[in-house]
């Protein structure tokens, strides 16, 4: 224990230093900053603060107490201003290049699925070995997620180390003197505006839910893509770096100050960031939104692990909770959109027949849609957990087909949905086919469309696997059936003109053929033949590749021969396929 006189002297000289720097008392003190000056000045000021603080703790005389606490207040006010000044002098937003760190942005390759364009930021694939390392870790999803998180979080030095040291030396003293709140306020207000200006650089907009509802979906798709990149940069780099900065400055100084400062800095911006994703998750359902919503879902799912790491403290709970809520709303939205889509396919009402019985735009749209769905198989596998709502074979509702689940035992729900979609597409197609007045077109239409479906399924291994052989067989069977019906409907009609019955004069077989009837028949035959031939020449029978002759049994040549046979007395019914196969 030092003798009291020594202490009193130490206090006096410390007090002198503090009073010299009282900005309310002197012009000079206002114009200069201690921490802009030389190290000696800085150290002697800090030492003075320590001395005064010590004397508060040891002295008992109330007079001295008052002087000491007055001195401390002046010192704290000064340190607060110094603290702010240092922070402001080092308030540079992160350079945009650092934010575009490709390792951070593209950790999950599947996020590149639909991003064919380069967009605002350049993207490259993560090197193969990195991904293989990840795959080699055979752990539960949680631990692999946190491993991934460790890889993906990138903490940058926001402020040079010697500055951090200065800041810490001030914070230490403010906190032990009981001025932690002032410290947190100053820190939060400066750093928060730095974060906000980084936000502006990343193109994060302040859009309200109303704004987003009014935007066209194409515009929103671009914004979603941009948001995904920005959100990854924010969580993994920006917020993570701010957190590290608060830890460097405040860790171990008591009162969970590092956490309080971090929340002051990022809470508002984080909420603003997630508000966008939230607004998207509650937008009206419509089929074209599915894939971007899945992209957003996947990105957020990936990001969640990082959010839990960066926002791990208790006071950050509302942010973690909000992120989880948004994720589950996006999942709900995806499920809702799929139902919406199924409904739309079933009820698609257009009655205008496609000329020539070709592939209907609906068929094309639906098949493209479900091909894309099979690309998103992994995500949807997680999200789609229940069977589709189908008709029942016991109901009398003829407006909804039914699906026999017995035949698709053991298939995942997503596959059931895809099969269901095909069932209802087929149902819709058959309904549309009935709007053709020409019977042969009815069958041609069904043939063309179901064939298209089959081709699309066969063209995609994922789709084929999910639809399964049973339904594929059913579909190809349908195509054959429609082809047969088509064939009958067209040519049999023509050949009907050449039927034997009614040609002979009543009486005996050996009697001659009625010339007039014959002439009429020929006329009719020629006319019909010409017409059918002519119109069918304008119809496209099968989509590219397939040979028409496998479906059309009789060529012009065949028919000419048939007519010749007739006149030579050969039975017409012996018309047969002249070529093999």
């Amino acid at each position: 224990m030092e003798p009291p006189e020594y202490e009193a002297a130490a206090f006096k000289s410390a007090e002198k230093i503090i009073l010299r720097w009282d900005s309310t008392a002197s012009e000079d003190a206002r114009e200069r900053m201690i921490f802009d000056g030389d190290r000696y000045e800085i150290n002697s000021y800090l030492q003075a603060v320590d001395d005064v603080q010590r004397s508060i703790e040891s002295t008992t005389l109330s007079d001295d107490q008052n002087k000491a606490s007055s001195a401390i207040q002046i010192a704290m006010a000064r340190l607060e201003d110094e603290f702010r000044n240092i922070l402001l002098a080092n308030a540079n937003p992160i350079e945009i290049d650092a934010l575009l760190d490709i390792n951070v942005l593209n950790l999950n390759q599947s996020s590149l699925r639909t991003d064919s364009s380069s967009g605002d930021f350049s993207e490259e694939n993560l090197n193969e070995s990195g991904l293989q390392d990840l795959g080699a870790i055979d752990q539960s999803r949680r631990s692999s997620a946190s491993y991934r998180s460790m890889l993906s979080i990138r903490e940058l030095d926001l402020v040079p180390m010697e500055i951090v040291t200065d800041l810490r030396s001030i914070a230490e003293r403010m906190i032990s003197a009981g001025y932690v709140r002032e410290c947190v306020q100053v820190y939060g207000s400066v750093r928060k505006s730095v974060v906000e200006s980084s936000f502006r650089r990343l193109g994060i907009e302040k859009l309200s839910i109303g704004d987003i509802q009014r935007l066209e979906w194409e515009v929103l798709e671009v914004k979603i893509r941009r948001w995904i990149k920005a959100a990854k940069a924010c969580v993994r780099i920006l917020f993570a770096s701010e957190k590290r900065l608060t830890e460097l400055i405040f860790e171990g100084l008591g009162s969970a100050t590092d956490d309080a400062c971090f929340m002051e800095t990022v809470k508002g911006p984080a909420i603003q960031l997630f508000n966008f994703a939230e607004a998207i998750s509650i937008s009206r359902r419509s089929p074209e939104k599915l894939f971007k919503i899945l992209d957003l879902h996947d990105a957020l799912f990936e990001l969640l692990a990082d959010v839990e790491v960066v926002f791990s403290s208790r006071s950050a709970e509302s942010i973690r909770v909000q992120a989880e809520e948004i994720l589950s709303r996006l999942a709900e939205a995806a499920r809702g959109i799929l139902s919406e889509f199924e409904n739309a396919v079933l009820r698609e009402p257009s009655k205008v027949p496609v000329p020539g019985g070709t592939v209907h735009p609906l068929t094309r749209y639906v098949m493209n849609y479900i091909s894309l769905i099979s690309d998103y198989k992994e995500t949807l596998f997680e999200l789609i957990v229940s069977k589709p709502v189908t008709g029942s074979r016991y109901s009398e509702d003829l407006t909804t087909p039914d699906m026999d689940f017995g035949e698709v035992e053991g298939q995942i729900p997503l596959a059931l949905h895809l099969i269901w979609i095909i069932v209802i597409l087929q149902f819709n197609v058959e309904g549309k086919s009935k709007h053709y007045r020409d019977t042969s077109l009815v069958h041609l239409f069904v043939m063309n469309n179901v064939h298209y479906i089959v081709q699309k399924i066969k063209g995609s291994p994922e789709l084929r696997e999910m639809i399964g052989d049973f339904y594929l067989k059913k579909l190809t069977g349908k195509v054959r059936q429609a082809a047969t019906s088509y064939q009958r409907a067209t040519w049999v009609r023509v050949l009907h003109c050449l039927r034997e019955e009614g040609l002979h004069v009543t009486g005996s077989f050996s009697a001659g053929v009625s010339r007039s009837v014959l002439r009429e028949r020929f006329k009719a035959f020629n006319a019909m033949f010409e017409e059918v031939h002519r119109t069918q020449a304008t119809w496209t029978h099968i989509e590219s590749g397939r040979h028409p002759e496998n479906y059309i049994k009789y060529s012009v040549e065949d028919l000419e021969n048939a007519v010749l046979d007739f006149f030579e007395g050969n039975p017409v019914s012996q018309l047969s396929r002249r070529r093999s196969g």
Partner: protein
Amino acid sequence: MPAADFQGSPASHTSRSFLSLRRDQVHSMDSNDSTNQSQGLETFQRHVADFLADLSSASSGDLLSLSWVQKLLDVFLVCQEEFRALLSGKKEELNRQPMNRLVNEYFDRSVKALDVCNAIRDGIEQIRQWQMQLEILLCALDGQKSLGEGQFRRAKRALIDLAIGMLDEKESNSVVSQRNRSFGRSGVNRENRSMENHRSLSWSVSRSWSAARQLQAIGNNIIAPRPNEILATNGLAVAAYTMNYVLYFVIWALVAAIPCQDRGLQTHFHVARQFIWAGPILSLHEKILEESKKRDRRNSTGLLREIHEIEKCARHMNALIDSVNLPLNDEKEDEVRQRVKEVKIVYEAIKESLNPMERQVREVFHRIVRSRTECLDSMGRASTS
């Protein structure tokens, strides 16, 4: 989900039991029987009338207080649940006109309310900043062995920060020069940096967003159902009209109470008088409007009772500190301790209620989203975006 699962926390015990009474009655409304339905409609309207009357009966000290606002939010949640229960299982009717249109209109309105909920969150954050200043004030002056120059200067700094923080954005520029005079010993340095503090508390909404415009959009075109519409919808049109007004009123009152960007309260309440809740809603509306016109509340950032309390005790404390001559005599010291106690009361009230209220606002947000999603999904029409 029935009303049983939310944890609203109205401050007073009586209000909690009042609302919990209603929760039991919500269960009984999930019935398809038509007599039950008309009973349900009547009950719904009666509940709304009762809730509003209860809110209206608050004393002038309670009206627009934090606990009153919490009760208001609870009222919304219960009414929303009742409304949802009335609509559940009515898929047929909801797919017919005019109910289809009315329900879609209600949900469109409720989406507009979501932006207000988000803006209110900002306002709550702002109040939290003021709470922090009060905390510093108390740290300086409360429970100190002796009150010296250091403590008073610290308190003064906090008060100046608080004053600047509570300035209405529009006013802040013009008032700064006036504030100069009251700075006293603390000097120019102080004021500049506090302005920075204030500016950095930016809203999370864009500069062009306006609470007043949003309110207008919500209240726009709420038309009382015609008798043929009421008949065609088995009375559900009345439920929709009622719920529209509940939504409108609650959001309006929130904007009145809590600071947010471009608060404007001059919106119209043209309620058709024949409804039993029309009287209570109009009287509440009137009371709140009157409050907003009072001289000392006209320029406030929000009509919340506690904001007024903060303004008052900050003013007292400021005057007191300015009049202090050290060393303090006993009388002066007593006065200081008295004022500190005032501050403490407000501080404690805010500290206790802000977080729960923020959670409630979030709950309102969720309920609106959930019930909209459920209802629109069950209506099963492919919606246009």
